[in-house]
């Protein structure tokens, strides 16, 4: 279990609050924090020439993307820039007009809004997805409950949980089968500050274990957490952006 960090900030803020944290420019020179330990292997995720339009509105205009193993990468962009559209296509939930998406294994997808059943308890969700994933046990899922600090709610029905706790379960369902590729769409919405920090510790641990983690974000605080960062603008990804070393939160992630 990753130990909890003590927040130095006076507020337990909502992680999705962007009102005072505009998206920074992401054209800093690339200085990959984890370059030295990156295994020289084939990309876990490869995306080529991805296009998507809604009527006359061209959301994606030829997105190219590669995520190698053991990399924590981010895609930022303003509201409506197409971040969630991109992730839904990568997860196979939305049909692109053109382009290819490939990955050589299973993936974990955490949608932006919680997709749970309010009639079931946390434990019942875990059991249902244990059968779906074909897992022999729930050891990893229970470990995630501890990391995200909501093990006390195992017997609570989802209908009675707070928004933040629902989001923790939403995230747990995407991670519990320990896939090599993780697609997380603003997975910390509603988290308190301590859990927000725990999430980034967890993401860094997964990266260090060789998983490829792609996080959609629009929070300035997040940008220092990534090995590589893209900005989605005008339907294209601006590549080469990186903010490693510029830890603007003042709290380093585990590495």
């Amino acid at each position: 279990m990753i130990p909890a960090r003590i927040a130095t900030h006076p507020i337990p803020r909502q992680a999705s609050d962007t009102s005072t944290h505009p998206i920074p420019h992401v054209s800093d020179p690339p200085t990959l924090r984890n370059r030295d330990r990156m295994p020289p292997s084939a990309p876990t995720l490869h995306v080529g020439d991805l296009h998507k339009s809604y009527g006359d509105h061209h959301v994606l205009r030829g997105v190219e993307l590669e995520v190698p193993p053991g990399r924590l990468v981010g895609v930022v962009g303003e509201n409506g820039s197409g971040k969630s559209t991109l992730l839904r296509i990568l997860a196979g939930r939305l049909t692109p007009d053109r382009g290819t998406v490939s990955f050589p294994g299973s993936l974990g997808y955490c949608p932006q809004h919680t997709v749970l059943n309010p009639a079931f308890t946390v434990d019942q969700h875990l059991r249902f997805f244990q059968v779906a994933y074909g897992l022999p046990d729930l050891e990893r899922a229970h470990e995630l409950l501890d990391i995200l600090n909501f093990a006390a709610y195992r017997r609570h029905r989802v209908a009675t949980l707070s928004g933040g706790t629902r989001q923790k379960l939403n995230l747990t369902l995407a991670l519990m089968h320990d896939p090599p590729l993780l697609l997380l769409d603003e997975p910390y919405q509603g988290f308190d500050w301590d859990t927000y920090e725990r999430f980034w510790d967890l993401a860094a641990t997964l990266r260090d274990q060789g998983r490829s983690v792609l996080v959609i974000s629009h929070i300035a605080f997040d940008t220092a957490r990534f090995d590589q960062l893209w900005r989605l603008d005008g339907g294209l990804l601006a590549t080469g952006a990186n903010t490693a070393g510029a830890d603007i939160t003042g709290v380093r992630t585990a590495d």
Partner: protein
Amino acid sequence: MRLAWTRYSTATGYALLEHLRNRLALVLVVFFVPIWITLVYLVINDAEVTFFLRASGRNITVDGNDVTKISGAINAVTLIVGFMMFIVTYRSAEFDERLAMAGYPRGHLLAAKLTSLITAAALICAYATAIICCYWVPARPALLWLALFGAALAFGGIGVMLGALLRGELEGMFLIIMLSIIDMGLQNPVANPASDNGIVRFLPSYGTMQSGVTAGFLHTTPALHLLLGPLWFLATVTIAGITFRLRTRDRRRHIPFLGAL
């Protein structure tokens, strides 16, 4: 085989649990069915009505109050089972899609939903038949239960289909209520003296009304009419299954390796 059973039994257990957590549906089952049949017993005129019963191929003359108890029971069970299945399917649509994309076999999920439908329909129809028997003993109570079961299956299937197709809760509820009202409004010979019109054959509860009236007053078995409800059920759940399959297909192109979510 054991894995298939685990998948089916787990999904079925949770599908039944969803129904048990639907308190409004349980309240409707417990109170709506007896209130509706009791009101029919107290209010509807018991004057005799004569109409052409296609299931027997002849005109029959029966007590208007008794035949309305049958149509009232059909109305009650179709509304409740249709509502139960629509709500469960509609509210868990995204969750079921997530399960399917995570690797849960769609066939097992659908089979579990249908098992819960059949179980709920069988129990509710037995309850409705028992309440009818409190006021009047039909010629063949078991056959009346079977007839009601057909209507419950038909509307349960319609509920599953609407839950899979629609993206608005109000639209689904409205459609089920309107369909049930039209269905019974046209087929009850007390409310509609022209209830033997050929158009009523295309209504979901036509088979049940014919076989239900036969069970109430005659000693024949209208096998073909009993099959019409299950036929509606099969058609509607097939549409629901195809919709679910399309919704949960992997939409990426040119993928060399398929993964699970």
